[in-house]
């Protein structure tokens, strides 16, 4: 049986100049959806609408069959959020070290490790950092890392907190070839485990799996 994780019905946003109009799609378990559209077509706005961070003008959003309400996203993890052409809001504190950032993240979100002891959580963080080859810079502050490394720190949240749905804003922008391979690997692993992924990208992305396209 397939679970419908996210359903979007005739969603519109923007008033005088609609950003997008009547977008409908659904995302099920083990599915990947690619939101496509040029610059300014409202890709980020769509993601923000889906997560209740921006008010839609009309249309309905259902997560796991329930109507969208604020603060109900134990199931989704949102990363990326493009601020302008160069910078991405990765949700990282620049003056904190990689490890401190991830500890903060673990303590302030609902996850399976909340009740675990400090050492267990520390081990899990180390595991994830090793997987993303960040262990060497674990105690460096985020502002000292390269932008590719910063992105990987932000991606490590995906592994730390096993959310069912990943919502990724422009995950392939400003990432080197190695990073693309890494991310593709993460996505396909997540899908194999039954997860779903929704991502935006203005370019074609060829993942080694079937991807549903949502054109804006």
């Amino acid at each position, binding site marked *: 049986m397939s679970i419908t994780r996210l359903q979007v019905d005739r969603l519109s*946003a*923007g*008033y*005088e100049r609609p950003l997008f109009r009547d977008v409908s799609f659904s995302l099920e378990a083990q599915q990947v959806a690619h939101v496509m559209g040029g610059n300014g077509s409202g890709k980020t706005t769509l993601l923000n609408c889906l997560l209740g961070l*921006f*008010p839609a003008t009309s249309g309905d959003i259902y997560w796991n069959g329930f109507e969208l309400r604020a603060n109900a996203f134990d199931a989704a993890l949102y990363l990326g959020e493009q601020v302008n052409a160069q910078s991405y809001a990765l949700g990282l504190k620049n003056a904190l070290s990689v490890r401190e950032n991830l500890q903060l993240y673990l303590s302030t979100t609902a996850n399976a490790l909340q009740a675990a002891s400090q050492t267990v959580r520390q081990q899990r963080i180390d595991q994830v950092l090793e997987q993303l080859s960040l262990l060497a810079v674990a105690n460096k502050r985020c502002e000292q890392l390269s932008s590719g490394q910063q992105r990987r720190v932000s991606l490590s949240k995906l592994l730390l907190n096993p959310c069912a749905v990943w919502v990724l804003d422009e995950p392939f922008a400003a990432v080197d070839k190695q990073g693309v391979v890494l991310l593709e690997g993460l996505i396909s692993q997540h899908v194999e485990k039954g997860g779903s992924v929704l991502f935006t990208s203005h370019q074609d992305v060829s993942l080694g799996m079937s991807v549903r396209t949502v054109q804006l």
Partner: protein
Amino acid sequence: MKVPQFIHLLGSPPWFYRISGQLMPVLGLLACALLIVAWVWGLGFAPEDAKQGNSYRIIYLHVPTAVIALAGYYVMAFTGLVYLVWRIQLMALMLKSAALIGAAMTFLALFSGAVWGKPTWGTWWVWDARITSMLILFFLYLGVLGIINAFSGSKTSQQAGVKAASILALVGTVNIPIIYKSVDWWFSLHQPATLKLTGKSNIDGSMLTPLLIAIVGCYVFYAFMLLWRTRIELQSSEHNKQWLRDAVSKK
């Protein structure tokens, strides 16, 4: 939450447009009649004040505007509350109107107070409790207007601005009694009570009746202005809607 019937009706711009169109002439005429009666009575027929002579007569402008200025803040906060709870667009327009009219009324009260102060106290401005509270109220209104102005741009941003203004107005509502009491206590510490010339206890009945009529007249005038401003806001925000074109062409 279940929306009460009358609030549901308020959510319908065509209904508001029609009803306000019918109400406005009535309110306008009533306000004119009441204010003319009050002011002719107050300025021409009420007795002269023993201490202040004729200069006290500005009370018939000063007190009503001051009363409305304060009441208007609560009207504004109430529209804000309704907007936050039920997201009725009309309430957003009404909040904007209430902020503007309220600020104007507060300014009028301050100005008439200054004009009154010159012959009475020999100075345009005195830091007494009432005036200071009125000045702070003016700042509170300006804050709400400032927030609305700062969130200009797209309509989504404007809506966020009205929500922000509503929250500010509600916080202000809790604060106003505290501010009034504090200021009152503070200035009563070191000022003789003789400065309190507007105290209602020492006003004669023959002066009081026109004052009360002026206050009622000013309330009606406020209601008229509120409907009028809101209609103007409605016309500009819904200018491309069919019902508005129909309503205008019917005239």
